[in-house]
């Protein structure tokens, strides 16, 4: 092996410029793979962590996945009966016996529970009307089950909701849209037609645009009054110590109580799916760079094989086996790939450092002040491994050709 490595190195060092160009091709592929994957991973992880931090991990809703079966379908499940024009019964929405369910959930380890009445209301101020989701909350439980108190940027926190007659805490984006400031009084109107004057006692900023622009918090009792739904809780928001168990927990709760239980993964299914598509597109793009680099390596090794036919003949005549000859040229491809990958690691690291220094302020789904980068050893290992492997594979065809050369044919041709 040492001998073959020595010969392979000798061939490559004799063509420094060609070897360097091929290595740079691999290095570019590896470097950009690392930078792009760090960029994608960073933004993805940031988005997911913001979701996981700010959203409930499981939300139990006063909804059902399937419409309730009609009595006739229950009595005659396989009957040839079709009922048309059924007028559904008006049921009072809300989770039945919510406090029993809250107590039952709170008894489970690792769960923090926030019962909520979520109501659609209009907030009006100086002639502007904005449709808002109002969360009626239990302050103590809300503190445990969400980060909203940490996101309140004004003095006083959630406690101010108790100390004010009709207090409301709204997002900074919403405040800007309405043009209200802290301590201003605005008008809240519910779909039930109840109108309430509410005083802004706090502003919050989560960094998630949809939340900051469309959400308000009030005491549960006040929200129930405003929505004209006394004693009703329609959402039970659950935070878990291990957010990755959310899907399993949602399934269990849905089986147990029949209400729709939505995990954070289900709520953001579209976004998480978009991440998969985005990552696939990214990996296809950077793979193309590595494939182009492989053509460079194929070219170099083919040229070496062509130029070295006499050397191959003499090596074969002195006792080198076809496998040795193949090994020499495969090693050449591997060495170009490996050294290119090492250069690519340095390039990728430098690119990440440079991208990390770029600053801007863009409001997309979340607020971003710069590129969010997350490099892991997986990015380096994967890109380097793929580069070395593709380089070796690129050398395979010329290496095989070299090993099949018959020394006598070459010597006859040279004589």
């Amino acid at each position, binding site marked *: 092996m040492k*001998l073959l490595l*020595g*010969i392979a190195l*000798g*061939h490559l*060092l*004799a063509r420094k410029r060609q070897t360097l160009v091929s290595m740079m091709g691999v290095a570019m592929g590896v470097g950009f793979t690392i930078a792009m994957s760090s960029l994608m991973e960073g933004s993805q992880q940031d988005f997911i962590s913001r979701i996981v931090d700010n959203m409930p991990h499981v939300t139990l809703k006063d909804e059902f996945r399937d419409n309730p079966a009609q009595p006739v379908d229950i009595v005659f499940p396989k009957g040839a009966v079709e009922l048309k024009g059924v007028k559904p019964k008006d049921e009072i929405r809300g989770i039945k016996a919510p406090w029993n369910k809250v107590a039952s959930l709170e008894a489970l380890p690792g769960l923090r529970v926030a019962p909520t009445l979520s109501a659609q209301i209009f907030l009006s101020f100086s002639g502007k009307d904005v449709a808002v989701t109002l969360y009626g909350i239990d302050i103590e439980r809300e503190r445990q089950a969400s980060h909203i108190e940490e996101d309140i940027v004004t003095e006083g926190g959630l406690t101010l909701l108790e100390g004010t007659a009709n207090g409301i805490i709204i997002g900074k984006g919403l405040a800007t849209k309405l043009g209200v400031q802290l301590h201003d009084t605005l008008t809240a109107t519910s779909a039930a037609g109840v109108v309430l004057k509410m005083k802004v006692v706090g502003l919050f900023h989560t960094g998630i645009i949809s939340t900051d622009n469309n959400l308000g918090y009030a005491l549960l009792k006040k929200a129930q009054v405003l929505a004209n739904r006394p004693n009703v809780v329609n959402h039970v928001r659950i935070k878990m110590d291990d957010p990755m168990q959310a899907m399993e927990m949602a399934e269990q709760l849905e089986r147990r109580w029949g209400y729709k239980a939505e995990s954070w993964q289900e709520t953001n299914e579209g976004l998480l799916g978009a991440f998969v598509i985005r990552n696939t597109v990214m990996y296809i793009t950077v793979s193309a760079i590595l494939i182009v680099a492989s053509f460079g390596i194929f070219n170099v090794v083919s040229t070496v094989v062509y130029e070295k036919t*006499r*050397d191959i*003949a*003499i*090596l*074969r*005549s*002195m*006792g*080198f*086996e*076809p496998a*040795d000859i193949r090994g020499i040229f495969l090693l050449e491809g591997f060495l170009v790939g490996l050294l290119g990958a090492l250069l690519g690691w340095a390039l990728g690291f430098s690119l990440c450092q440079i991208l990390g220094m770029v600053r801007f302020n863009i409001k997309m789904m979340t607020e971003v002040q710069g590129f969010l980068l997350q490099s892991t050893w997986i990015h380096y290992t994967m890109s380097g491994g793929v580069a070395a492997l593709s380089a070796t594979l690129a050398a395979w065809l010329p290496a095989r050709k070299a090993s099949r050369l*018959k*020394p*006598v044919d070459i*010597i*006859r041709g*040279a*004589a």
Partner: protein
Amino acid sequence: MTAPVIEARKLKRILPGLIPVTLVDGVDFQARSGEMVAITGASGSGKSSLLYLLGLLDEPTEGSVAIDGQDCVHLSDAERTHLRLERLGFVFQFHFLLPEFSVLDNVCMPMKKLDALSTDEQEDRGRHLLKELGLEGYEKKLPEQLSGGERQRVAVARALANGPRILLADEPTGNLDSKNSHAVFDIFRGLVQDEGKTIITVTHDQGLAKSCDRQVHMADGRVM
């Protein structure tokens, strides 16, 4: 009389194709230890083809080649390759030195492949061979820094690296001037007389051929 170290019987080599070409046509040949044999003949007479068959670089269409009594025709490619590594040395018209490696590295290459000696022993033997061939002090030079005669002497040193019993030379002086040609043949003569090696050389040079122990003249693929 000693037994032949290399022997060919009814050796035939036909190049297949639309019009098959007979390179070697039923040749019987043998060479003994301590014998220097010259194969002569006009261009295209089959001299080199016979040498390649004797050196197991090519496979005969018919007939047999035996080295030290061992039939080599039915050996696998790997076995023939190993036999070349251990028992045969080749010198060609072109030196075929590896240009990226030093003179000493070129000479040590077959020893490294055989891996029978330690690295130090390989280098000692390489230096010794170069000294024997008058190339002391050339160890670190690259082939491009040597003259034609010097390169050919390095090629001889490389052929002798693993101590083969048989040295096969195909027009070893074809690219050399008269002085260097005689120098190479003097080396061959010394190897035969001092070490009992068997040398089979193809040559056009009648003067050099006459200095060999025996001449085998070929025409149309046959020994005349």
